C-alpha cells in the first residue's frame, strides 16, 4: 500500500487546528498575572494541562493523517456545500436581523433558508408553515412564559 496516496487533508487540517487552539490557550495562560499566593495551585494549571493534551492529540491526528493508516480522518461522503452555505447564510442573517426586524421576520428568514437548503421548493407551503410556527412561538413564549423576544417591526401589532 502506498501510504502517500492516503494523505488526508481534512485530518491534517483538524490536527493543525487543534494545535492552534492549544497555542491560543497556552498563550492566554502565560499572560495571566496571578498573585503569588495562588502561584502553586492556581488558575493556570488546568489550562496548561488542557493545552498540552490538545497539542499532543492534534499532533497525533495530523501525523496519522499525513502518514495514512487505519485511523485516518477523511472525506467519507460527497458533501453538498451549497446547502451548508445556505443555512450558514440564514443563521448569519438571523443573528443580525433579530433585533432590528424582530423575532418573527428574522425567524421566518431562518426557517425558509433551512427549508430551502433541505431541498424544499414548495415556497408557499413553507412560508405559511414557517410564519405560523414563528408567530405561535413568539406569542406562546412572550405571553405564556414571559420571555422577552424582540418585537421589531411588528411592535404594537403583537
Amino acid at each position, binding site marked *: 500500500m502506498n501510504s502517500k496516496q492516503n494523505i488526508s487533508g481534512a485530518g491534517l487540517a483538524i490536527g493543525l487546528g487543534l494545535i492552534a487552539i492549544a497555542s491560543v490557550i497556552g498563550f492566554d495562560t502565560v499572560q495571566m498575572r496571578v498573585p503569588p499566593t495562588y502561584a502553586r495551585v492556581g488558575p493556570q494549571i488546568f489550562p496548561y494541562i488542557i493545552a498540552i493534551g*490538545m497539542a499532543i492529540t492534534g499532533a497525533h491526528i495530523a501525523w496519522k493523517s499525513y502518514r495514512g493508516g487505519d485511523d485516518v480522518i477523511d472525506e467519507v461522503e460527497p458533501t453538498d456545500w451549497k446547502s451548508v452555505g445556505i443555512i450558514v447564510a440564514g443563521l448569519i442573517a438571523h443573528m443580525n436581523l433579530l433585533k432590528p426586524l424582530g423575532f418573527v421576520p428574522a425567524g421566518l428568514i431562518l426557517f425558509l433558508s433551512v427549508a430551502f437548503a433541505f431541498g424544499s421548493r414548495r415556497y408557499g407551503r413553507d412560508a405559511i408553515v414557517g410564519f405560523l410556527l414563528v408567530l405561535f412561538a413568539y406569542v406562546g413564549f412572550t405571553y405564556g412564559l414571559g420571555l422577552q423576544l424582540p418585537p421589531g417591526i411588528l411592535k404594537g401589532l403583537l
Partner: protein
Amino acid sequence: MESFLSLMDGFATALTPINLMWSLVGVTLGTLIGILPGIGPALTIALLLPVTRNLDPTGAFIMFAGLYYGAMYGSSTTSILLNTPGESGSIMTAVEGNMMARQGRGAAALSTAAIGSFVAGTLGTLALTFLAPLFVKLALLFGPAEYFSLMVLAFTTVSALLGASISRGVAALLLGLAFGLVGTDVLTGQPRLFFGYPSLLRGIDIVVVAVGLFAVGEALFMASQSRLRTAEILPIKGSLFMTREEWRRSWKPWLRGAAIGFPFGALPAGGTEIPTFLSYFLEKKLTKHPEEFGRGAIEGVAGPEAANNAAVAGVLVPLLALGLPTSATAAILLAAFEQYNLQPGPLLFAGSSTLVWGLIASLYIGNVMLLVLNLPLVGLWVRLLTIPQPLLYGGILVFSTLGVYSLSNSTFDLFLLFVVGIIGFLMRRHEFPVAPCIIGLILGPFAEAHFRRALSISQGDPSVFVTHPLSAVLLALAAAVIIVPIIIRRVKHV
C-alpha cells in the same frame, strides 16, 4: 427498608396533580422528540433550561426524567418504521425492527419494544431505588482527591469508548474542557480565555454548546448529505397483540437487556449506546433462530430496547448520588441541578429528599404512562414521521435560536451558537463523538475545583491522588481504559 419508606414519601410527592401533570408533559414531549429524528433528549432538555428557570425544581426534574425515558420509547418507533434511529440508543433496533416491519410484523416489533421498555424501565427504576442510597454512602467516603480521580475515570472511559477512535474521543473531550475554561475562574476571580469580550466573562453556557452541537451541527450535517434526506416510512402491519410465540421469544431478552443496560448506564461509559450493542450481540449468540438475525428477529428488538431503558435508570444512579454524568443527557441534567443551585450527592439526598424521591417515584408512574401512550396510541405518533424534513429542521433551528437567545437576551450568544454549530458540523462530519465534549464542558470546572482543593489540602503535594487508596484505584482504572485497548490492538496486529 429505609429506601422503601422514602419511596412511599416519593409517591406522595409524585402523585400530586401538579407533579402528575409534569410527568405527563415530560413523557409526551419525550415520546414526541424520540420519534422525531434530529432532536433528542439532551437537546430538548437544554432548550427547556432557560424557560424552566422559575419553575419548582421538583416538577422540572420530574418532567426532565419523563422526557429522557420517553425519548427511549419513542425512538424505537422511528427505528422500526423508518429505519433511521430516533436516538443513538436505538441503532440496533433499526436493524431487526425495520426488517420485521418490512415483513409485515411491524406491530409485533413495536409491541415487544414498548413492553420490553416498560419491563426494563421498571426493573431499572427498582434497582435505582435500592442502589442509589448505597452509592450515597459510598459518596460519603469521597474527598476532593477521590472526586477528581472519579472524574478522570469518567473522562477516559467516555473518550475511549465512544467515537471512531481514541484520539477523536480525547480531542472532543479536550475541546469540551477548553470551552469550560472560558470565563472567570471561580476560586480566584481570574478571567480566562475571554479575549476582551465582557460577555465571555460569565463563561460559555452549556445550553449554547449543547444546542450548537446537537441542533445546528446536526442540521448542517444532514443538509450536507443529500443521500440522508430520503427515507421510506413503513405502515404498521399486523396485530399489536403479540402471539404466544412472540411472548415466549421476548421475555428472556427483556430481562437480559435490563441486566446489561442498568450497570452499563451506571458506569461512566456514555449511556445507552454500548449496552444496546452488547444486548444485540448477546441475543444473536443465544437465539434458537440464528437464521432470522439480520432478517427480522424479534429478540434483536426486545433485548436492545430493554437495555436502553434500563440504561437510563442506571445513568441516574451516579448522577444523583455522585453528581457524575455518564451521558450527554445526564450532563445537561447536571447543568439543570446547577441552575437550581442544587448539588447532587449525599447533600441532595439529605437536604432535598422530596425532590430525589419524588423524581424516583415519578419514574415508575412515567413508565406506566409511556406504555399507554406508546402502545394503543402508536398510530397517532406515527403521523409525526410524515412531517417533511425541510420543515422539521427549519422548526428545530427556529426553536434552537429562540432558546439560546432567551438565555440572556443577547445576540452574542447566537454568534457563539453559530461558531459551536460549525464545530459540531465538522465533528459530525469527521466522526468525532459529541458526548465527551458535553461531559468535558460540564464536568471540567468541577474536576478543576476538586483538583485544586485536594492540592491545597495537601499543601501542594500531588501525591495525594495516588496515596489515597480509593483515588489510586480510580486513576489506575482510568489509565487501563486508555492503555488496554491500545495493547489489544497492537497484539492483534502482530
